[in-house]
């Protein structure tokens, strides 16, 4: 897990430190490549406006994730992206011209997982992404999404079930791990 400590809340430094994290999280939260610049910009503009609220540098990461979760959710709710092409297509495009077999398989897995994640409601998707992919502690996940710990756990378990169902409906990957 990437950890970023900042001794001062200098926005330029925060941008440098958190831009890769924001881009990664937004992708996992369903923001497509073509919209990534716009949504990431919104995240940092919002973060800039909240600098005065952040009392401790240690709290910055949660703020950043929280803002990213909200903007990703807003983005997904907009009518014109509702019928989104899951990110898998983007992932395949990013694979390059002559990928190795292992890369093809990894891309296929990511694409499939993206499609399954896209079926989850935003609140469950956020908890699952933050816990299972970003691997944040559950306490921080609850803080980011603004719910009690028990609610965060409930969302995680529900998200896991829905994810498993969505994956089974998508069918197995050829050459997969089964």
């Amino acid at each position, binding site marked *: 897990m990437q950890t970023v400590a900042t001794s001062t809340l200098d926005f330029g430094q925060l941008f440098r430190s958190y831009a890769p994290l924001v881009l990664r999280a937004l992708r996992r939260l369903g923001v497509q490549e073509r919209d*990534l610049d716009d949504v990431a910009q919104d995240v940092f503009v919002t973060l800039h406006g909240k600098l005065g609220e952040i009392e401790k540098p240690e709290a910055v990461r949660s703020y950043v994730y929280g803002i990213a979760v909200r903007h990703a959710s807003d983005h997904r709710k907009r009518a014109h992206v509702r019928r989104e092409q899951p990110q898998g297509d983007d992932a395949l495009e990013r694979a390059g011209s002559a990928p190795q077999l292992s890369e093809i398989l990894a891309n296929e*897995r990511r694409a499939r997982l993206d499609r399954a994640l896209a079926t989850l409601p935003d609140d469950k998707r956020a908890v699952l992404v933050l816990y299972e992919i970003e691997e944040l502690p559950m306490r921080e996940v609850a803080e980011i999404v603004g719910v009690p710990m028990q609610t965060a756990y409930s969302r995680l378990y529900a998200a896991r079930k829905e994810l498993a169902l969505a994956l089974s409906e998508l069918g197995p990957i050829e050459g997969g*791990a089964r």
Partner: protein
Amino acid sequence: MNDEPVRLRLDPEADPELRASLDAMRDERHDDDARIERLAMRLGPLLGPPGGGGGGGAGPAVKAASAAKAATTWASIAKGVAIAAVIGAAGTLVVVDRRPATTTIPSAPTSAPEPPRSAEEPVSEAQLGSVTGTEPSEDPASAAAGSEPSRAHVGSARPTRREPAVPVELLSAPQVEATTGVVPEVVEPDVPSEAVMLGSAMRGLRSDPAAALAEAERHARHYPSGTMADEREVIAIDALVRLGRRADAEARATRFRDAHPSSPSLRRIERILAN
């Protein structure tokens, strides 16, 4: 922490294919340097001078790889800001120097902030041209008066220029204007920088679009052909949409599109209008 559920990726009882997929997702790598640079340029008004002169050092706990990437990116940002500062200095030169004519107009303006620079290299004329998208001007009148911005300003008529009878370097600002017919941008000492002005507009866009629009218009008055003119137009169009003035927003977008058909900001403007 101990009572947290085992993560699926590490759970031997979880579906192997799901575990492999989660691993694949975690292992995915993106080369986001160019994207981060674009983002930094967009956020320029908020970022301000890089690191308060601190250069490219990242936070102390940033992973080495991230730090190296960030440093590279930041060097580019610093260069961009330095270039912007140089452009700004050139653009405001004539106005800042209201004193009697001297032979040293192309000196750094006393009131301008020290342009932040990346440690390595000074900004050359060629770099200036390549970054701003213009050919380096060989016309001293154009260069000194700052009359020819990197791109035509939206809604502004291109000033007609007469050939100066004497080298423009030898003229004071009023003389430059009288000689060349060019009205230089008016930058008064108490006017905030472009970055401050647009940063304020950008921050207030959601909460107070009317104020953001006013700030963008203020920028247009003081920096009609400023380095951040594109960003100003995006903010203004966004503010107009938020204010429900869609027709005005679309008209402004049309003017922008006509003036800058290849601007990278067009896509953002289209998205704003689509929303």
